[in-house]
């Protein structure tokens, strides 16, 4: 047994989330595992539809009902399996121990309630205190996310604020009850580049102050490089590569990760045409039997067509815990290439 201090803040094991669609039952998240330590940031990278947002919502057990449901797996928060909790118990986890920031600040605040109401409500859900105290705490929460003049802003409504300011308010709502894990689902995608940088710095600062663990969902490798300690690359519902951020950047093992890194335009290079991965991700209702990236892969072998690279084949390629789902790792002549 590991001692509690060694235990990850959040660990997801073999999570499978299915969605009942018109085209059949699909596995939007198909056997995903990852973990995030206290004070650490894990990046989940993947293109739209790779299952990263559904995985995040699965952690909070808020996948869209009734079409989606969690079929198997474990979500261990400090060792407790969230999937075994009752709905009532889950409510005490949401916002209190695990929080989430959504992508678009323009739509994630309720337009008919004041900022104060929304922050106070978030804090009041998990604290039994008189209203006056709650308002004070809400003001403090807004101050922590660097909202200027929070005493006055609490009476404002969302439409009176800029996008960046709204996203700070969403941050205050998420962090108001001092959760141990924060899931940030592309929190800066909808923001201007300058505001984006400010917001990322703010999250980093708060993490340093509070020892927060962050799961950062993004498709931007630039953000990953700035924010994350570890990375999980998702493709078609599975984590295809997982490891420390340095290892992933310096020696990506999965052809998909390599392709993704190649797609990032380099500022100092002058290229006529940006690299793009050929083909499309497979449709969930028509998954290849073998490796899901095989139809688009440059180094695919016969075996890739018929057999999914099993867990055994996840060879550690670099220092400590760097895995990839790729048969090529088993080949002796395979040499990790630098991208």
């Amino acid at each position: 047994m590991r001692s509690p201090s060694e235990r990850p803040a959040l660990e997801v094991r073999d999570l499978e989330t299915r969605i009942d669609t018109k085209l059949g039952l699909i596995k939007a998240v198909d056997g995903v595992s990852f973990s995030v330590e206290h004070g650490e940031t894990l990046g989940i990278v993947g293109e739209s539809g790779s299952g990263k947002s559904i995985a995040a919502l699965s952690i909070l057990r808020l996948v869209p009902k009734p079409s989606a449901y969690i079929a198997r797996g474990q979500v261990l928060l400090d060792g407790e399996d969230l999937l075994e909790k009752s709905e009532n118990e889950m409510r005490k986890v949401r916002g209190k121990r695990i929080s989430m920031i959504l992508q678009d600040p323009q739509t994630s605040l309720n337009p008919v309630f004041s900022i104060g109401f929304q922050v106070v409500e978030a804090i009041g859900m998990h604290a039994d205190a008189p209203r006056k105290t709650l308002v004070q705490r809400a003001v403090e929460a807004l101050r922590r996310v660097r909202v200027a003049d929070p005493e006055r802003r609490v009476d404002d409504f969302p439409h009176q604020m800029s996008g960046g300011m709204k996203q700070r308010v969403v941050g205050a709502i998420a962090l108001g009850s001092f959760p141990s894990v924060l899931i940030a689902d592309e929190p800066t995608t909808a923001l201007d580049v300058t505001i984006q940088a400010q917001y990322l710095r703010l999250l980093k600062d708060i993490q340093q102050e509070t020892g927060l663990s962050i799961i950062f969902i993004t498709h931007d490798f630039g953000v990953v490089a700035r924010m994350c300690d570890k990375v999980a690359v998702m493709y078609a519902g599975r984590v295809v590569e997982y490891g420390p951020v340095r290892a992933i950047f310096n020696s990506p093992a999965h052809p998909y990760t390599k392709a993704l890194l190649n797609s990032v335009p380099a500022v100092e290079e002058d290229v006529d045409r940006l690299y793009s991965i050929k083909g499309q991700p497979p449709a969930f209702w028509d998954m290849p039997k073998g490796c899901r990236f095989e139809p688009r892969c440059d180094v695919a072998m016969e075996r890739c067509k018929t057999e999914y690279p099993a867990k055994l084949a996840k060879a550690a390629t670099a220092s400590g815990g760097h895995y990839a789902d790729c048969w090529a790792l088993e080949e002796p002549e395979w040499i990790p290439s630098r991208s």
Partner: protein
Amino acid sequence: MKRYLVIRSLQSLLALLAISVIAFAMSHLTGSPVDAMLPDDAGPEEAARLTKLWGLDLPLYEQYFVFLGNALQGNFGDSIKWQGQTAFGLVLERLPATIQLGGFAIIVSTIIALPVGVLAAVYKDTPFDSAGKLVALLGQAMPNFWLGIVLIWIFAVHLHWLPTSGRGGFSHMILPAIAMGWFQVAAFMRLTRSAMLEVLDSEYIKLARIKGVPERRVIWVHALKNAAIAPLTYFGVIAGSIFTGSVVIETVFAWPGTGLLAIDAIRGRDFPVIQAVVVTFAGVFIVANLIVDTLYAYLDPRIRYQ
């Protein structure tokens, strides 16, 4: 907020003024009222005398201002059909009956339609939702005069449970209220359902759940306050039409309200009464919508801070 309400009130006054022009013009479009008032064998001298007496020889705009001045004092002249009664007095006398029936119908239909609409959205595609759909479909497909007759036939004629027509105790209100309210329930319910469905799918509802807000509060506070705008707009429309009395329902059930008065006045070419009815109806409509506009501002801060 204040500015918004002042602007809305001014707009309402303007609308009322426009209505008065229409009501005035209406009585002149159908020919001289003198023809309607005189017996068939009256001579031209008699007609000229009456024209002068009623001020019908004056220019139209002057006639309008006389009409407007009198109307502002609640004076629409005497009824032609109901001798010895003022037109406005007749309307006021009938209005309580209409408000009683209409008010009852609208309160009951709101109490039914709003929660059912909300729950139909929450339990989308379940048997509850389908049952709601069926009720709504029936309500919207059955013409209300036909429904009224069928209700009388079943519950009054055959079962003798309820009176056939007229105004009396509470039992007199049940059948006309159902005939009147079913359609409103249907429309109201469907509007609430679709507005709720849209809102429940939004990001701020997701965020409310992420915060740990209990589902009941998510639905009835976070979602409903946003979804209420569409049904509220419709409420303004039906409140207006219900409080001015359903002409059809009041006729079918011989309910002595303003709707029935309007029909009788039109049949008797009783222009003062028609004018009084039209202007009063317009007033009721405008007040109902003014109330709805005020409620908008209460619901949505984006309107409040315009």
